[in-house]
């Protein structure tokens, strides 16, 4: 099945666009208010920083401009988001147990984990196909 590897680059680039645009929604919610969210616009300094990083990096990642740099920043931001909100139990309404700290399915931190690792993958696999600038 090694012939499938020939399509890896193509599939990777499609995924980068999809993930980048989903990331754009997160930033848009915090800064632009679109798509609308129940939490409303970001007001805290941390929320605003996160929103601008998300909004700035998402399009760079989606369209492959300075991909590695943007993906590195976005990946770090998602790691911070996971530890600040999910790991510390802010998404739950009670003090987290050890198990709730460690398992993303319990602390609702699956999305930050997935984003973080997808972007880490993008840091190491910026490819020529579909990227505006390959560096």
């Amino acid at each position, binding site marked *: 099945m090694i012939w499938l590897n020939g399509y890896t680059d193509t599939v990777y680039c499609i995924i980068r666009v999809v993930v980048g645009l989903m990331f754009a929604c997160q930033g848009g*919610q915090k800064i632009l208010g679109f798509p609308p969210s129940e939490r409303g616009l970001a007001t805290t300094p941390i929320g605003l920083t996160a929103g601008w990083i998300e909004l700035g990096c998402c399009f760079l990642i989606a369209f492959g401009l300075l991909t*590695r740099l943007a993906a590195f920043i976005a990946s770090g931001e998602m790691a911070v988001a996971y530890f600040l909100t999910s790991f510390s139990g802010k998404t739950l309404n009670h003090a987290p147990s050890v198990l709730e700290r460690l398992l*993303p399915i319990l602390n609702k931190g699956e999305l930050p984990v997935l984003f973080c690792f997808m972007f880490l993958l993008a840091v190491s696999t910026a490819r020529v196909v579909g990227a505006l600038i390959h560096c």
Partner: protein
Amino acid sequence: MNSLNRFADPFYCITRLIVGLMFASHGGQLVLGMFGGMPGSDNMMMQVGGWIQLVGGLVIAFGLLTRLAAFICSGEMAVAYFMIHVANAPTPMAKFFPISSAGPQVSNKGELAIFYCWFFLFVVFYGPGRWSIDAWLRKGKTAAATPTT
């Protein structure tokens, strides 16, 4: 910065392990009632989906029959997105946006399903990677399971 490409395969293998385990924990939630269980998991389709997630997630995490398992899981997540998330969305806007943190009027909350679907599609094409049972079984038969660029 092409020197960073040498980290692609190790990063990929770590990602595959973590994503596989998170996927399996959803299966455990549906089938075994772990992590508090999930409401509405007692119908036939959810049970079938749960077993695919549990077995497929573990098999992908450790890299056994990776491409086949990832193909099945990717298809299952596409079905889950369209049959559950999109089908239950009340407004046209909610049918389009998958964001998890928005309300039901604007979002179908299918972001995780999309994520798993595309990541597993990537796994189908990329293959098991160097740290996997597949690569360990194949050692000696073929030189390399994946190209290193």
